[in-house]
């Protein structure tokens, strides 16, 4: 789902503010600071495929390349999926491995139930994407119970484990990753341009 599609999801997905939109390549060359904020409820099941337009503008301005745009898109998708599934819907990864007698895993079953329960489904995940020259900061915040974050993400030992890769993907791209608000907020920073190393 790109940003133009996101605006169609007026109920579950709301663009709160979007500043500094540059429609032409010429303008993009002079891209200055801008901040965009978005909201997602769990009803927007494809929020994970969201891609904010700022990333395309950064690419047009040659501040990032295509590979970096894709990597940053993936970072946002992973963090949003975590915020919605683990944060707002309070679903635990280990439940994906618990299969009932009907062949359904506990994660999917509880996800379906909680999507139908307004106490969970109406919780909001917020994405804030802020660019200032040299730095892109992405903050994803949920309304769940929070968690005690691991100091360092690691890949699952079992390659076949269906979860546990999101944080590793995020850390492979971002220069800084930290949790705030008791694990309800993840702050991710990417150095852009000459300072990216």
């Amino acid at each position, binding site marked *: 789902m790109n940003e133009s599609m996101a605006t169609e999801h007026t109920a579950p997905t709301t663009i709160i503010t979007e500043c500094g939109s540059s429609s032409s390549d010429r303008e993009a060359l002079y891209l200055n600071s801008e901040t965009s904020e978005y909201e997602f409820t769990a009803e927007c099941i494809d929020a994970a495929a969201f891609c904010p337009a700022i990333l395309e503008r950064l690419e047009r301005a040659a501040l990032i390349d295509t590979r970096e745009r894709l990597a940053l898109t993936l970072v946002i998708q992973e963090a949003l*999926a975590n915020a919605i599934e683990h944060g707002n819907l309070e679903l635990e990864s280990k439940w994906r491995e618990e299969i009932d007698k009907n062949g359904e895993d506990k994660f999917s079953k509880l996800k379906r139930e909680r999507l139908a329960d307004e106490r969970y489904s109406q919780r909001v995940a917020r994405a804030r994407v802020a660019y200032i020259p040299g730095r892109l900061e992405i903050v994803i915040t949920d309304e769940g119970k929070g968690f005690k974050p691991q100091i360092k993400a690691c890949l699952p030992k079992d390659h076949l484990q269906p979860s546990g890769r999101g944080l590793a993907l995020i850390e492979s791209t971002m220069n800084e990753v930290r949790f705030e608000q008791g694990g309800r907020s993840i702050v991710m920073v990417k150095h852009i341009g000459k300072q990216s190393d």
Partner: protein
Amino acid sequence: MAEDFATEIKGDKGYIKVNSDLDSETSGEALRRAFNQVFDQGKRTVVLDLTDVQIINSYGIGKVLMCYKRLKAENGCLMVKPLQGFVKETFELLMLDKLLPVEN
């Protein structure tokens, strides 16, 4: 909604051409339907063509691994066409390239 992914049977192999990013429930479901199509035709070697895919996220990887497990349970094999770009990087980072042989 993602359209169905094209499938093809060649000899003892089933081929799935994934024509959208694997980053959402919609595309994940399209992969599941395509996989069932070749699996139900008795094919136990399935080749995923991810040439047109730019992004695969945790959700998409979970669906790919589901296909892998179903084949493995019946001594089958999930393969991929040669990977490229960021998808290749993602597979290497997650060490999935060790799991899924490449069909050249």
